[in-house]
């Protein structure tokens, strides 16, 4: 299991790199699809079927939205001239990222080991979730009962985004 997980993650990283580097926007979007569907498999391995279902449909939808946007506009990424500024800023960014990688890697050593989480809050959810809420799907019991307030916020975020999209896509913002 562990080996498959690591292989999947390496595939996802490769997909992400190709997605960011590719010259053609459509292939970039499809490479992003590799990352997203890889994530679905990772969720399945990690015993999270709920997340896998949501991720696979959301990923499909994201791809549809992105591809629809690209088909309406352009597929080519315009060329970057290799000026000195571009090269130097690129090198600086890479150095910054390497430093960040070391900091993150170092700090992550202080986390609990993979596979043995600290169940301070969720012990109760696991033991009493079914009894207290009646929902056999413990994730559903968490999102819709213990932490339903979060879910209201989440639904509101989606509502806000739709309102925002309607606002942004209006033909005319100001009256004449």
């Amino acid at each position, binding site marked *: 299991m562990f080996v498959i997980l690591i292989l999947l993650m390496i595939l996802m990283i490769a997909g992400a790199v190709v997605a960011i580097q590719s010259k053609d926007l459509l292939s970039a979007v499809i490479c992003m699809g590799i990352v997203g569907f890889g994530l679905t498999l990772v969720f399945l391995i990690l015993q999270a079927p709920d997340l896998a279902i949501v991720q696979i449909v959301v990923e499909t939808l994201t791809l549809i939205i992105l591809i629809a946007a690209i088909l309406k506009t352009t597929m080519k990424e315009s060329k970057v001239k290799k000026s000195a500024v571009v090269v130097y800023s690129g090198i600086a960014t890479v150095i910054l990222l390497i430093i960040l990688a070391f900091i993150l890697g170092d700090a992550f050593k202080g986390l609990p080991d993979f596979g043995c989480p600290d169940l301070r*809050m969720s012990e109760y959810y696991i033991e009493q979730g079914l009894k207290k809420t009646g929902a056999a799907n413990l994730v559903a019991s968490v999102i819709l*009962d213990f932490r339903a307030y979060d879910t209201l*916020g*989440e639904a509101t975020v989606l509502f806000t985004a739709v309102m925002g999209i309607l606002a942004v896509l209006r033909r005319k*913002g100001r009256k004449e």
Partner: protein
Amino acid sequence: MNSSSVTQYLLPLLVVLPLGGAFLIQLSKKISGLISDIIANFIVVVLVVLVFSLLNSPVLVYKVGGWMPVKGIPIGIYLVSDGLSMLLLIIINTIALVSLFFSISYMKRFTNKPLYYTLFLLMIAGMNGVVMSGDLFNMYVFLEVAAIASYSLVAFGTEADELEASFKYQVMGTAASAFILLGIIIIYSVTGTLNLADIGRVLKDKVTEAPIILTGILFLVGFGLKGAMMPFHAWLPDAHPSAPAPISAMLSGVLIKAIGIYALVRIMFNVIGVTPIFSNMMLCISAISMIAGVFLAFAQWDFKRLLAYHSISQMGYVMLGIWLMTPLGILGGLFHMLNHSVFKSLLFLNSGAVVYGTGSRQLKRLGGLNQKMPVTGCTSFVASMSIAGVPPFNGFWSKLIIIMACIQSHHFFLAGLAVLVSIMTLVSFLKVQRYVFFGGLKQALKDVKEVPFTMCFSMILLAFLCTTMGALLLPGAKELFIDPAVNALLNGKEYISLVLNK
């Protein structure tokens, strides 16, 4: 049932009402255009009444869903209102009411007003949610509600530059959210809980461990981006001027405080705990914000852009006060936060009135507006003097306290810097007054009229607050408004026991 348990039931209403209003407006917009005006204004009036009725109550803790703690570990989401939240709630809802009143006339120039009101109410709900939340992830969710509403409000005019500003703002905002979420995950992984007070209890003696230090930095970057602290400020001078004027007032006056400074201060002071290195770093950032903001503002000839740069600089003052970590400093910082929200919103509303009357916000194209727009001219003079720290307006008192606090804690250099920035702010605003309101009337501005009543009324109200808010420092008012907030920060870790024992 004693009185405190009755008032705690009012807490969720502060989020529920604006949300319900937003949904109702979308459902009922077909019936009449007027109905959205009525619903939005009515709800915000109710919110203001609610907030003021909650004033002077003790620390309130509300457990959503009635999930009581098990073996002392909270399992549900908590809503907490202590002194600091109360101060922020007052700022948010009052400024929202004034801006909303201003919008009634101002937004007639834009299409689809119900959509505007919906987004506005969602933004208020998001900010109220952030300020009252006692749960780390819940805070993140409501932060996103407020942020997404503000992204789309910035682009509400749908002109090219507005869309561009909104995109820039949103990319930075989303990256900031990613950093914040990473911090939340690390905290959850280390502590196994999300309740702020409970996290504080678990982390009591772990402040110097590597993951926690990393989290502090991640939160600094994330909330710094949201609150436009200096190295992360790039989006603000584009986004704030691009929004419609009442929204600029909300963004500059409230949003960067509620989802930037408040969230960072709450987490660092009350939950994780501040190390001296961190507070010194924050002092550096605030000094840089203060001085660089004012220098950049100097070069601007766009009215709203100039104001946006001054927001960065004034937020530097607020942070300088708070991160001195002395009683006087925190008092000054919080008081300046209150004052800044009033005078900066007023200035943005003034700029909106100027744009409404003349259609331009370039300083060089304006002039002599005092003859044609007396109310706008007068109120903007009050606000300018207030932001520059001229006595007897409110900005003077808070700046004075901050400078005194700097001297008291032997940061003479910072004190000198604060005085210098104050003088430069004065110069910068004299320039605004000279180019916009004084001087000869330009030929093109001959038929400019004063703005409609609702806009004038909001500006006069804020100008009145500017002149009188110095009185909040008098005994009596001080204990009611500012002292609880100061105490909430000073006795940082007391928050944990206060919340967990309720």
